[in-house]
């Protein structure tokens, strides 16, 4: 998958949890949870959604690495590449 395709999956997953998000206004290099009102349950569901759509295992120990949308895309790309 390309980065753009992974980003599209991530944004679709995000929208399913936070439908009010204006995707065009999201900054990929800014902290995701400061731009979108996501509590820990939403965050867990976001990661779970990515796991289900992309079949990527995300250990809890890696949660702290996923700060921005760019982080999420790069992390998933690495995981998909390794798989």
């Amino acid at each position, binding site marked *: 998958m390309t980065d753009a395709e992974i980003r599209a999956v991530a944004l679709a997953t995000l929208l399913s949890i936070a439908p*009010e998000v204006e995707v065009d206004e999201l900054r990929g290099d800014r902290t995701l949870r400061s731009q979108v*009102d*996501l*509590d*820990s*349950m939403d965050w867990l*569901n976001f990661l779970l959604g990515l796991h289900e759509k992309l079949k990527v295992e995300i250990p*809890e*120990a890696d949660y702290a690495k996923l700060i921005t949308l760019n982080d999420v895309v790069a992390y998933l790309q690495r995981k998909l590449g390794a798989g």
Partner: protein
Amino acid sequence: MIEFKLPSLGSDMDEGTLLEWKVGVGDTVKKGQVVAIVDTTKAAVDVESWQEGVVHELVAEIGQKMPVGAVMALLLEAGETAPAKVGAGGTAKPAPAAAPRVAAAAPAAAAVPATPPAAAPVVAPAAPGRRMISPAARKHAEEKGIDLDGITGTGPHGAVTLEDIENAAAARPAPAVEKAAIKPAEPQASRAADMRKTIAAAMSRSKREIPHYYVSEDIPLAKALAWLQAANAQRPMAERLLPAALLLKAVAMALKRYPELNGYWRDGGFVPVAAINPGVAISLRQGGLIAPALLNADGKPLTLLMQELTDLVKRTRAGSLRSSEMNEATITVTNLGDQGSQAVFGVITPPQVALVGFGRVAERPWAENGGLKVLPVVTASLSADHRVSDGHRGALFLLELNELLQHPEELDK
């Protein structure tokens, strides 16, 4: 005959609009079965029946706005046979000798007397299943929302007259039913405004009537988080636990030792409740919040509690809660840690008598035994009703909460 009434769907809800019946005449209803969906200012709620029976009559109509306590349906008890009378349209009707029902959705106290009034008028003698009434009087009754079964006709052969309708309308104790047409879903802004008013009313009442006191405790979570991390490492993603589940379970367990924080203030006194049903404050994306109950949280292992919490949050935000979840919370738990607040001192939801708040779990300097270290810490707070408990007991409750969180493995039972 069992009168199925609109239950309270939270202390701040005094009326609801029937959206849908989930049962029909002749259906058997079991305890806990969802029988109707009722819209409130906060959510559409699946209303459960806590009595068993067979549906005899659906009194409330779709789109009808009713106060809490209004009779929505009549159920036949086990072994009870349906009254023989059948209406002209073939619909079963209560027996003529039954006490007259005032318009379906009048306030319960006025509309549904526990026993028939001594001078209860008897339904006019007429041919079985048919009231003698002119079309004009029938139309007038419909316009006024008057139940013809409750009227004694004073015309020839017991016929119901226009004057009888007027008298019945004048004698009605309160504007009974707002018989609204089925409305399309309210615009989100309107619902948000209604919810804001409802929250405003409940919170104003709380601050007006409940003498709050507040205590707080900083609780180190190193052991709890390490235990969670180890537990989650063994679990598939869909079954991982959040710290919120651990905190909820700890609150529920601590309440077992401090029952004066779990219950209601009613009729000038405290009513303790044996079941521990923390209401979980859940913010809605369109604004406002709801605090539905996680029933019997103290007796559930963490995996089940987490599943139920996930389900509760999902259904709350989807607008699909059950009446028991809306009216059986015995305390409220709020967590603003995800929003970055270090601590929260909440407003008690009446008639409850306490609220527990959690702030952000963050690393902080921690002095202990003459040394300094860095630990993950959460500030837990208690807002409690001073009419029921004192700060001394409140502080001990938070100490108990702290102690429980130092032994997380014991919370998974």
